């Protein structure tokens, strides 16, 4: 397992969220949207502006580049279960 930020992992990666590097208020809001420690996320797309669209089971959340950099994920060392 390697820890990287969401902005640094390729589109298609399935990974597990770690503690985000944000203040507690934003951390709680991220958690309310499902982006909390232990959640499995699927990086679906890179957006205009450098952000990412993230899938959490059936939910889809768009985040900007700053948030994508703050979201830390643990990626399996064998890399990374890339889903087509």
């Amino acid at each position, binding site marked *: 397992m390697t820890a990287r930020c969401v902005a640094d992992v390729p589109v298609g990666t399935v990974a597990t969220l770690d503690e985000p590097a944000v203040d*507690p*208020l*934003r*951390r*709680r*809001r*991220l*958690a*309310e*949207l*499902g982006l*909390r420690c232990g959640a499995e996320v699927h990086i*679906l*797309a*890179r*957006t*205009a*502006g*450098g*952000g990412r*669209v993230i*899938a959490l*089971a*059936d*939910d*889809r*959340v*768009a*985040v*900007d*580049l*700053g*948030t994508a950099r703050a979201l830390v994920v643990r990626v399996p060392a064998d890399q990374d279960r890339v*889903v087509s």
Partner: protein
Amino acid sequence: MSATDDRPVAARQQVPSCHSDAGGRQAVAGSPVVALAGAPNVGKSTLFNTLCRTRRDVGNWPGTTVEVGRGAWRVADGDARDVELVDLPGAYSLDPVSPDEELTRALLLDVAPQERPDAVVVVASAVHLTRCLYLVAQLRETSQRVVVAVTMADVAARRGLTVDAHALATALGVPVVMLDPRRRAGAEALAHAVSDVLVAQPPAPRPVPSGLPMDDSGLALADDRFGWVAAAVAAGTVRDRPAGRTRSDRIDRWVTAPFVGPLVFLATMWLVFQTTTRIAAPFQNALDHFFSGPVAQAARAGLGAVGLGHGWVADFVVDGLIAGVGLLLTFVPLMTLMFVLLALLEDSGYMARAAVVTDRTMRRIGLPGRAFLPLVVGFGCNVPAISATRVLPNARHRVLTALLVPFTSCSARLTVYILVASIFFPHNVGNVVFVMYVVSILLVVLVGLALRRTLWRSVGEEPLLLDLPPYQRPTARITAVVTWVRLRGFLRTAGGIIVAAVSVVWLMQAIPVQGNGSFADVPVRDSLYAATAGTVAPVFDPAGFGNWHATGALMVGFVAKEAVISSWAQTYATQHPGDLHHPGALGTAVKADFARSSHGHPAAAAWAFLVFLLAYTPCVATLAAQRREIGMRWTWFGIGVQLLVAWTLAVAVFQIGRLLG
């Protein structure tokens, strides 16, 4: 003046506004109060409209409801029992991070227990159950009566997810009802469930584990709630296949992509722009001719039949009142098209994607991505653009955008650009018009930056964190309801101000202040209108166009830019030039006047006039729309900013042009 509303939440919720007028009947006094709560974009307002048979603004993107709506909902037939249904702004939890969420918390939790709703219906999307039920977890820690209404079960089913309402109800400890407000299904079951909980004892609060670490943000408690929700969702749902890529994902792969996404967005905006201007134009012209022709003639004939066919009464009715109403109604086709397109974009789910695509660009001037839409629409007409600011869920963003829209150069200003350019720069008309549009864009950016660094210092720093709803096919019923609600609101608010302004201009042109004319029978140069313009004209001396003819044209332009050329021609007692590229006698007269007032620098004065025309108040209809969307205080502020920017720029342009030229 502050960019935020500092009043207490309880005071703010009392503010009447267009958003809160759903047009339905109210419950009788003493009826139980039931609140509709839930995460953003789960269909609360659609459900509210279905239950109360009202027409409240709805849309398929987070943040449609920004105020509280109230209506009567009949939950039982026998003894005709009403409840007062309260539609609350969307909130993921009772820990607010925005004013709208603050309002929801205030009404559900912060008020005294006896003032809280008798029951809360938490609307939860079957597609996003985990996210939606956190609010239930928090409410279950109180003794609040709760019913969970699960929507979007059809979308969930297509993804292989089935909700077992009975199992979910058992896990949550509250009744769960499946419904589809878009197709008006399940309302009866919800009414039964609410009737039952209203007569039942309040539930015992869910025990919160003791010994949780107490930090300021309550993250440990939040984790406990998430665990409780996850267990309930696991017990109450059945998945027949793992979550995978959906049709929406496949579309989003292109629609939000770095290069294609902006292209799709620009194409969409181009379509909106073209539709609202080109398709509406023939209808606008037809209405204009109808009011200035058959309606005016019929009115004169009617007044003639009672002996008032000639004289000031007939002139006032025809040229003041009927002209004012006619001007208002010519906006109806434009506004209808605009609102239909907005409703389609919102209901389809595209608006959330547009926000993602434009977020980075707009953030530089302190606005979220979806503010791009009203600004683009503003280049067609500022009036629907101001109304389109309601696509922005944040009140501060709405105010800032509504203040910037008037700097977008609407098509009505284009006719004046062409006329002035044809008079002063006949070989470069196209270039002049192009420069005016570039200046317009620069004004939006620069004024936006200036406001962001002053009154809106904290705006635009919020990160993008946006729930993307699945795409869906817009329904005709919802499109029609949303369009009608918005159009009705526009006509109600804008009607009075437009008719009043047109009537005032007529009155000023009818009152003689010199010469031999009488009331309503006076040459314009001898009227109060000319005298007022002459009094104001010296203000424009430093800009080189301090003559009463040009000032009078700008005064009329304050009412409607469409009337500038005809009234300008009227002040010289010439005809409206049929071909703007060949201004004829009007052009000769204007050129001579500008040469005099600019002391030999008419070209510089013409540029200054064009810049002033671009930057000052667009028209009374825009002001009426602003008043409706952001209130009178901000409308006055906007007028001040526009006049200050317009005058300063005009003076700068003339003085620099004079030195250069």
